[in-house]
């Protein structure tokens, strides 16, 4: 079903979910996490099936198999001793790495269903990324202890530790490029060829805290720049070496437009994902909406109805057929607004058509 370009793939299979919770009538992932979803990732294209993993603040990482029909089958679960902050897959889809508040990263071998610690920091680990290069493979972890570390997963000490100016808030990797956003609006691009090293620091195009970053590729499908999301409703498109300085731009998003009270509400951008085929992007925000954008045409392709709660993370599967997004509280209004009784959701959407760049049609 994901491969067919069905228009809004509404089904009545999930009658249990009230329509307010699923305004877009997307496929709901069964047995969702019990606490906020902190991370989502689809299995890489090295295997034919689609597996979805989600890390949660309840300290668990869950794995589902997503069938073509949109049905999800819970496969397995692993837990760590603290809230999960990030998850990622190994390139061969046999392993999942889980970064958590317990200052560790564990490797979950899906074959044996066992976990083993592969990385450690002095503070909660905010990001983890698997790097596969011709000359080495390693795990990159960014932490609030202001370091970026590279791990050969078989040895207990890091291959390389890079000090960051501030705490790592977000990172993305697309060989040979890695970009890290830190507190204090730090933005550092690393080049991973040979030995990972700082390539350059970029003055932040945003005025407020960095929240999410995602690397995009150019027409030749080599990484060309990144999109950076801010805590205050704005996304910046930044090229590493822009062909034209005007290619860098920022745009507003996840803001309410003209509510009756006269205010424009500005929400945090929680995640950005680029479509693996079309190169268009999706953003999700604290306003509970997801939006699809075409950065080249600088247009919005689609915006969703608001969910009951913020959307914390999103991701595309490897061939760009499925868009997954998680609806749960992102702490954007502090603990006072945290309602444990509210159910968390992960929805799957057949998105291939919706994300086609408009210029092509």
């Amino acid at each position, binding site marked *: 079903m994901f491969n067919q370009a069905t228009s809004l793939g509404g089904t009545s299979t999930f009658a249990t979910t009230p329509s307010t919770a699923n305004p877009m009538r997307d496929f709901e992932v069964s047995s969702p996490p019990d606490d906020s979803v902190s991370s989502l990732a689809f299995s890489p294209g090295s295997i034919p099936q689609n597996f979805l993993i989600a890390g949660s603040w309840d*300290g668990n990482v869950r794995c589902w198999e997503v069938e073509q029909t949109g049905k999800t089958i819970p*496969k397995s679960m692993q*837990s760590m001793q603290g809230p999960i902050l990030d998850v990622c897959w190994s390139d061969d889809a046999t392993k999942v790495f889980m970064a958590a508040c317990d200052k560790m990263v564990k490797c979950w071998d899906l074959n044996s269903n066992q976990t083993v*610690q592969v990385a450690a920091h002095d503070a909660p680990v905010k990001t983890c990324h698997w790097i596969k290069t011709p000359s080495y493979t390693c795990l990159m972890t960014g932490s609030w202890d202001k370091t970026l570390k590279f791990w050969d997963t078989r040895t207990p000490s890091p291959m390389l530790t890079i000090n960051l100016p501030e705490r790592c808030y977000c990172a993305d990797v697309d060989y040979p490029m890695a970009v890290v956003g830190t507190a204090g609006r730090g933005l550092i691009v690393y080049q991973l060829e040979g030995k990972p090293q700082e390539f350059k620091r970029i003055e932040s195009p945003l005025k407020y805290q960095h929240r999410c970053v995602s690397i995009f590729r150019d027409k030749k499908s080599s990484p060309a720049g990144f999109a950076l999301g801010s805590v205050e409703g704005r996304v910046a498109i930044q090229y590493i070496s822009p062909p034209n300085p005007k290619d860098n731009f920022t745009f507003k998003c996840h803001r309410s437009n003209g509510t009756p009270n006269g*205010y424009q509400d500005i929400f945090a951008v929680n995640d950005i994902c680029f479509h693996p085929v079309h190169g268009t992007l999706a953003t999700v925000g604290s306003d509970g909406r997801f939006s699809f954008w075409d950065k080249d045409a600088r247009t919005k392709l689609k915006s969703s109805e608001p969910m009951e709660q913020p959307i914390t993370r999103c991701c595309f599967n490897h061939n760009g057929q499925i868009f997954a997004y998680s609806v749960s509280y992102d702490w954007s209004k502090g603990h006072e607004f945290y309602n444990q009784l509210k159910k968390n959701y992960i929805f799957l959407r057949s998105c291939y058509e919706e994300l086609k760049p408009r210029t092509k049609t």
Partner: protein
Amino acid sequence: MDSTELDFSKENIQPVKEGRIASYLSTALNSQCHAKSQSELLKEREKFELALRKYKGDDPLEVWYNYINWVIQAYPSNEVADLTTLIHKCLAKFKDDERYHQDVRYVKLWIKCVEMQRDPFETYDMIHKHGIGSKCAEFYKSWAEEYEKIGDFKQASKIYAKGFDYGAQPASDLAKAQRNFEDRVARHFATKPEDEWMASNSGSDGRRVLSALAPVKQGRDENVGSLRTGAAIAGSAGVLKQSRGLQLQQKPPPLQIFTDQQVGEARNTVHLDKVPLGRAHDRENTRKPGKWTIGGSAKRPAPAVATTPLASSLPFKISEDPPSGKGISTPGGLCYSQNVFKQRKVERDDFDCPLAIFEPPDPTKKVMYCKEKVYSGGNEFSLEEIRAIRYFEAAEEEKKKVATENQENKLSSQSDENAEGGQSLDLMEDLSTRNNNFVTPSNKGKYGNRQEVFHEGRPKGPSSYHPSPMQQFDFMSAPSPTINTRAANAMMNELFSTTFTQCLGDSLLVMPQEPQPSAPKFEIPCDDNATFPDLPDKEEMLNYQMPKAPFSIHCSENILFEQSPLNDENNCKSDEAEEVDKNWGAHIPFVPPPKDEENFGGDDDSSKENCCPNDYQPPATKEKRPLAGILLPSRNVPFKPLEEEDYAEEKEDDVKDVNAPDNATENNGDHHKATSVKRQPPSHRLAWETSFENEMYKCLNDVAKSEVPTLNKEMDDENEVGFSCSKSFKTMSSSITKKSSGGIIFKQTSTMRMVETEIASDSRHGHESNSNPLSRAPLCSQGRDENKPMFNERGLWGGGLSAQPLAGPCETPNSDGPETVENPTDQSMLESLLGKVALPVSRSSNFYRITQSIPYLKTNDAVNLRRGLKLTIQRVIGSTPDAKLYLALNSEGEPIVIKYQHVSCEWEFYIVREIRSRLEDPRMFSAFSNILEGYLFNADSSMMMTKYLPNGSFIDLLNAYKKKHVVFPEVLALFFTIDIVNSVRVLHGCNVIHGSIRPENLLIGDVPDVSKLSWNDEQFRRLLPVLQLINMGKCIDMTLFPRNVCFKSTSQEDQHQCIEMQNGKPWTYQIDLYGIAFTMHCMIFGEFMDISCQNGIWNINRKVPSHFNSGIWNNLFHSLLNVPSCDYIPDLLSIQAKLQEFMFTFEVDEFMSAIAFMKRMLEELHRKESNKITFKCV
């Protein structure tokens, strides 16, 4: 704290009314220079920041107040902490909070804030109108003092009166203050008539330099303060007394502007939304001192007092010096306290950007995230961090709760136990599990059920929820103290008398210790399979997983994952993968016979690198082979030997071709026989062995040679087995025996022609012959030292070989002959070498081949070499016979050097890339030029981009010294010699010869910060490297040549030939040693080196100056210039160590001042000639 320390930096300490705490002050001052104390401060600060967000009680001001007071104490200069922002934030936060309006702490903060204002009266007035502090005695006191300071006693007394009107509390305090005030006024008028006092007072206060210059003013300010004691002298928090003085004389226009703004702002803010910031004040202090003269208010500050050690050692005017950045010189730079701090600050590599760019509040917009939490205090937190704070708090609480619960339990169990001792065991066990509850996540119970659902219908395997080791802890197996009631009692007592954490640690017997997740050691606390992925036996794992794993499809890849380093190499050759596939089938039959394995087992240490790792178990039996066949990507692995085999055959042909017409001797015939024997079973062993033999006999066989160590070390297990087992041991040993007898003779018959043939064939097989340079690098670095082990190996491999044949090659290691190569940097030679390179230059992502002719570069032109790279040419900064250097700016305005030349840059590009990949220590990266991008145009023209180093080339610096007639200080010459020796040593370690080390090929990188330097290895090592070796076009990559190669250059018109070149002797690394000597000579004498030979000993013609330590330098020249032969290259490491030892005999201060002086020279150079860096002819 140290009083001298205080003396040196007291200008940097802002006085505080309540005084400063010495311990804080000491750390704070230290933190300017020591990263450690700085990080301590930062940590402390983070704690406060955390507390701000964590606070849940009903007195949020408390945290703020403590924080701000701490900042005042910890950052005496008020510079780093941005105190004003903090105070401002705090005041703004509580400005509408009624309960704090009369709170002394809050009022005190306001007073602090006001003290930072230029015009305190307006602000006091405003605050008072707002009702803040109107019932607070403290407020009126400081308000009145403000008036008193300017001598307006009338107003001051009115303020006191106002205080009483409003009923300020505590009234007694206010009354006392008022009495004191009246006393002071009375005394003042009693002792001095007003004008007399004015006259005597003006300029009497030594510290108030500026106030002395104030013109006498009309109006309110006519009376300058009554008493210069107490608060007036001490100044108030965060404010230098100066500022008051400034206010008195509002003549200089720039100041007036600030004042006006400030006043206006204060006046308009009836609503306290804008807590007035002390910005104007700050701005003033950060202004460059030069501008004061514009205002006409002050003379230039007196020239820096010549206490700097610089003055003693160098004949330079100090007066023009910018602050040197050394603590000792601060007394001279009183007026520049801000600058002093900037210089002394520990270098932090962060971008200096504001936390956030706060926009003015927009009524039409409303942020929907908890901004006040995110941006509370002086730091920012992400939403996740805020949540994590909460989480950790909860976890902590949970822990405590469990702890108390446990204790309660214990108590009850204790009483139970006393009643019926038999049950105690159970209870204790219960206790231990209970303890574990908080070890595992608290939600565990919650998810227990779900867990089951997840695992339903699956065969029982290792479940995803592993019981923690503690839960499995067999309590019974440990002797339980509870068996003994008395012991138990004692323990209970202890439990109650200590905190919970303590008892966790103390009574290990009762409770297994909680695993420390943060422990740096990788002790895997939770999982049974606490091993790293590579440990488990692969075969076993595979079998184990296959039947039950839910992801069975990928299990083959699982192994691939573990072998990833292996694949790297093959990836380089992915284009040939297909071929491998073809050959794969044919390859299978060469399954290693098991006896090979035995052979491997028999190897001893000396040939360790040639055999499998200890823990490796080769898939020796046929049954296991197909299993390995599942590993799709690892199919590539045997490919390499296979290639090699093909190649080896061809090479053998070459050898034959060469030898045949030579009327081979009997021994040669033998050799042929040997090779033919080997050729019959085409196998990996063949290739390996051939190469090995050749190595042994010192035949020129670079390819095979380079393969040997490569394969041995880096190829992974399977490979090793594949190729080692493919030939039976018998054949091998027999062939060795045959060949060994003819070894020496064969060596002699080898001719130069062979060499050339070899090289030619090499270039044909270029990409096979060299594997990934990256992985090869460390192997090659062993260089010629490997000779010995090689021979030992041979002995081993040869089995029963006698030692005699070994001796031959060993004894004549330095005999040249077949290894000689002429003109290694010859263009055609380089081209052929480039053909051998594993990863062709053209495949580098930053190398571009452009099929156009090279563009003409003109100043101010913009060049667009590729998409996204637009360079604006600035100017020519140097030229060499075949290259021109341009300075250009890229689109971000960063300077970039373009090397524009009409020869190909391929070689230089290659060598730079190689060096970078071979360097093990990333700190050394900056010692060698890095090519950002390389462009090759038609007709071999090329451009290369490198980073621009503003300090220019080393020769410019030396010239500058010369021009000033200043001798380059010995300590500096020594330092740079060490630097160069170090870099060259590292370069040689990468098996690269630079070939033209000269001052013009050295750029000056960042001059290190030497303040607070002391002589020890660690600190010294951190200084290096300063110089950067550039111009790598003459480099020689030794790994592309046979191990014992020597070079012979003919007819080099270059005057900088090394001695060996001049005499037509073979050379290798000597050329760089000569280069070092040459550079040293330039430093010491300020001119190029001139050498001559006396009694067979080469020496420089000039005498080392008498104030230099001539012994050391002469020795150094001697050993660098008189290298006995290619095989006795002096050990640079020991030279470096010796030099360093010598370096440490100098005073650190001398070095520091020399560096500081050099810095100034550089700045001067930089300034003067607008960077006309001339690169002399190469």
